């Protein structure tokens, strides 16, 4: 009895705390450690977009957005601490930018009723909304990425990959292992030979893997890397004179800092993507005017327009649009996490909406539904131009192999559902 009273008192004190009208978006960032090179620009973009919305539009539907930053260092224990520290402050959505932390948070957010958006990372089978009620991974997931890579290679080889040798250099963790199943299925389907080369955390030591590449002489190398591993791999590939145009990374292995270290030798390196690159969009004029020139930019403010900055901004944009959708649906401006979840499930991103935000063709068009939390899974390809120091989109957002991916998603998510006694939704 006493315990119940105590916890009731505690709950009321916690709930009454964040009553001030602000929409809270926690940013579980990592600006330190071996993955900071990727974490910093993403977090800057995420923060800056909310600052832009606050400064230019006066908030989301008239309510200011507040970003609470918490440093995780890409470490799951610190990630849990950050989640627990921020969840009672009225958090609307979590975007941890780490597959390891995502796996921790999936059961927790579902129990606490807070949506989790893992854009292009996390648990791929979370795309099945029937099983994962609070987890979203639109607009594309790892398996779309894997299929996007193979589709691009199919295009280059007139639709025939039989007898080709493809090596996968991957981060030996939950993140790096995600695409293996899809690539194995695709290797059966298209008849190419797949070779797996794991690289252990943090990935500074890759001599033996690239020696293997040199010996096997694969036609293509696919990379699932993150952090310092990317730079090292590209440098090693350059050292063994592996043709860069045959080296293709996932979207987490395709940023400026990954290729710049290898200099001119990195020219032609490719990476798949689910959003556009460069700063040639009207939104960046506003960003310059309202955020950078006003001295409000997050971090050092020198990342504007970089690949991962754009991705952080895109993640924030999708969160803001979902919040707007939620406000329309429920008719209140000061939404809760449950309403945010409804907004995410009803999110529609079309060309007109993106153009209206000053981001025409910034990402693929898609809509989210109760069954499908993963969007359409359209994937584009970018290529690095070392001379001009720019990434450019060389193939527009295209469909990926839905037959293979959807079957795998259903299989993995039903296994998860039966393991955890989850009954399917959306009936």
């Amino acid at each position, binding site marked *: 009895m006493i315990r119940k009273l105590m916890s009731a008192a505690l709950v009321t004190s916690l709930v009454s705390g964040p009553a001030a009208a602000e929409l809270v978006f926690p940013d579980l960032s990592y600006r330190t450690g071996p993955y900071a090179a990727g974490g910093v620009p993403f977090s800057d973009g995420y923060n800056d977009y909310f600052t832009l919305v606050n400064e230019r539009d006066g908030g989301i539907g008239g309510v200011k957005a507040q970003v609470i930053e918490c440093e995780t260092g890409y470490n*799951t*224990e610190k990630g849990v601490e950050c989640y627990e*520290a921020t969840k009672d402050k009225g958090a609307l959505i979590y975007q941890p930018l780490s597959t390891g932390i995502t*796996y921790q948070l999936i*059961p927790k957010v579902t129990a606490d009723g807070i949506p989790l958006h893992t854009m292009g990372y996390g*648990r791929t089978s979370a795309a099945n909304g029937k099983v994962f009620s609070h987890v979203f991974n639109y607009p594309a997931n790892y398996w779309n990425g894997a299929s996007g890579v193979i589709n691009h290679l199919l295009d280059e080889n007139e639709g025939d990959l039989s007898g080709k040798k493809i090596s996968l250099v991957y981060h030996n963790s939950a993140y790096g*292992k995600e695409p293996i*199943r899809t690539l194995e299925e695709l290797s059966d389907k298209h008849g190419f030979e797949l070779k797996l080369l794991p690289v252990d955390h943090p990935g500074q030591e890759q001599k033996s893997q690239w020696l293997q590449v040199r010996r096997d002489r694969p036609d293509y190398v696919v990379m699932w890397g993150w952090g310092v591993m990317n730079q090292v791999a590209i440098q090693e590939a350059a050292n063994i004179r592996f043709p860069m145009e045959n080296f293709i990374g996932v979207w987490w292995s395709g940023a400026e800092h990954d290729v710049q270290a290898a200099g001119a030798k990195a020219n032609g390196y490719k990476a798949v993507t689910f959003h556009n690159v460069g700063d040639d969009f009207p939104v960046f004029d506003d960003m310059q005017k309202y955020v950078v020139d006003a001295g409000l930019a997050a971090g050092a403010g020198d990342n504007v327009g970089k690949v991962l900055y754009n991705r952080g901004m895109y993640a924030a944009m999708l969160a803001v649009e979902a919040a707007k959708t939620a406000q329309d649906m429920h008719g209140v401006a000061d939404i809760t996490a449950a309403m945010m979840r409804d907004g995410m499930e009803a999110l529609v991103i079309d060309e007109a909406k993106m153009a209206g935000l000053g981001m025409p063709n910034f990402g693929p068009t898609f809509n989210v539904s109760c069954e499908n939390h993963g969007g359409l899974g359209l994937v584009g390809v970018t290529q690095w131009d070392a001379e001009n120091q720019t990434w450019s989109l060389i193939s527009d957002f295209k469909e990926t192999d839905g037959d293979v991916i959807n079957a795998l998603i259903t299989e993995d998510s039903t296994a998860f559902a039966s393991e955890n006694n989850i009954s399917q939704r959306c009936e």
Partner: protein
Amino acid sequence: MFYREAGDFKTSYQADGQTFPIRFDRMRYYVVLVVAFGLIPFFINDYWVNAILLPFLIYAIAAIGLNILVGYCGQVSLGTGGFMAVGAYGCYKLMTAFPEVSMIVHVLLSGGITAMVCVLFGLPSLRIKGFYLAVATLAAQFFLVWLFNRVPWFYNNSASGQISAPERDVFGIVITGPNAPAWATYLFCLIFLTVCALVARNLTRGSVGRSWMAIRDMDIAAEIIGVNPMKAKMTAFAVSGFFIGVSGALFFSVYLGAVEVGEAFGIQKSFLVLFMVIIGGLGSIFGAFAGAAFLVLLPVVLKVLGVDVLGWPTDIVAHFQLVIVGALIVFFLIVEPHGLAQMWRVTKEKLRLWPFPH
């Protein structure tokens, strides 16, 4: 003043040999137990449990385990992370294979499995010691992590190689998974820690513990006076492995809920627990608690101070945290090489005489 000994006479061997011979210490110990069991569970929320108390309790169990091996028996081990992984993966396999069995049984069994693995990797200690043994246990660390990464059977063939704790209970109270109430997970770990500490304390002052310490102090002399080095070393590895396995099982199932072997149980975990033992004090059960508290609490306190109170950028605070924790470790080791436990001992000696030292 506080530690008055006047009138505190011991009339039996038992009274003389008890864990807390001074009455004030004994009372304090009971107060701590009452507060930990009777008061804290009513007041805690998710943040306190998941960010501070659970890691403290679990690391304290691991530190007690390692302290038995390093502090009491003198066998240096760098394989703690790997052995914790054995506990975690053992617990996962048991939880998924026998869902209806109580969590208590699973945790104890995973401790037992780890004890066996630990003895296996402890065998080289019969021939080698010191730095060379450290290298041998380092091999255990890398081998075990590689094994759990490599063999899909250990993670039930999941696509990502992650293991996730399903919901399991003890006497109908959910202990693992996201719906477990904060007080239940706290009490569950607290009970394990209390029992482990009592067992460890009583082992170390009995004949087994004395044979460990004899081996630590001088193994040849110990052998001459009749201590069987093989038995002493192997029991130390087994008991230490059991505690470390229990902590690994709790770390995975109750605290984190999902674990990736390379990230959660890497070499840095071995060093972290070793630092806890060294900073806390080698050969002291209290030292294990002090070391765990120091290394778990300090980063959180610094973070709260820097980010929430002072409002500094998160990356600056994270960097400062490393610098300050590192500086404090160096400072403590210079000022008191025998750790926090020795500092506590010295303070106690002084307080016994205070305020009339002469």
